[in-house]
């Protein structure tokens, strides 16, 4: 098994994970599950970077994965803080509860 075939199959797995996360974002109406699905999508993107970096023995893929990790950590901190605010205010975690704007 050569590395190129492995990279192809790995990219298929990454796109499958990304599709599962995208379906989760689109189908689930609970904001907590949507955040979890976004984490799965970011993880799939990181998997694609690491696989591409490992294909040519370069460290750049892992470095991009670290940047994705930092971005996911910041995103989930702000997202969960917003989720707590919404749950206190609306007693409901559905995305439709916050679809209206004032004014």
């Amino acid at each position, binding site marked *: 098994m050569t590395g190129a075939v492995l990279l192809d*199959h790995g990219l298929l797995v990454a796109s*499958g994970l990304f599709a599962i996360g995208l379906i989760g974002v689109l189908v689930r109406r609970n904001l907590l599950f949507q955040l979890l699905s976004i984490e799965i999508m970011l*993880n799939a993107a990181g998997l694609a970077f690491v696989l591409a970096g*490992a294909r040519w023995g370069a460290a750049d*893929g892992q470095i991009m994965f670290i940047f994705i990790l930092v971005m996911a950590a910041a995103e989930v*901190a702000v997202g*969960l803080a917003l989720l707590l605010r919404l749950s206190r205010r609306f007693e409901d975690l559905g995305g439709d509860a916050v679809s209206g704007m004032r004014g």
Partner: protein
Amino acid sequence: MVILFYIASFVALVASAMAVSRRNAFHALLYVVVSLLAVAVVFFVVGAPFAGALEIIVYAGAIIVLFVFVVMMLNLGPPAIQRAEGFLTPTMWIGPGALSAVLLVEMAVLLARSGDEAVSGTPVGPKEVALSLFGPYVLGVEIASFLLLAGLVGAAYLGAGVRTTGGDR
């Protein structure tokens, strides 16, 4: 060695599909942890051990714990106690436990054959990653630190609002 890659990928796909289709948040979090561990095994197999360790430490160890904290904060109140007993029924551990057992066997096989090379090319260890991260990519590190600071300030501001305003408005 290649078969380990396919088994771990299959476990990751199954666990992710189960995670987005669960009704209960705790069950979904368990499956997400299994998915992240499976992706970490994929990283180890393809020769990126540093990324695999970071996947376990930061994703499964910090981000998912943050999710668990928030789920527990959302479930305050007397009805949550009856619901919490329903969370921990023995049958719900079978799925994540079985998938994790598959990953454990894979890790045992990997450790037993630790003299071998990675599947694709030579492994890229933490030293190469660190040298490149603080060499050509040092500007990215600075930008990442700014992003983390912004996330910290934003989360602190929003979280402080939860405590002071309480449940009103």
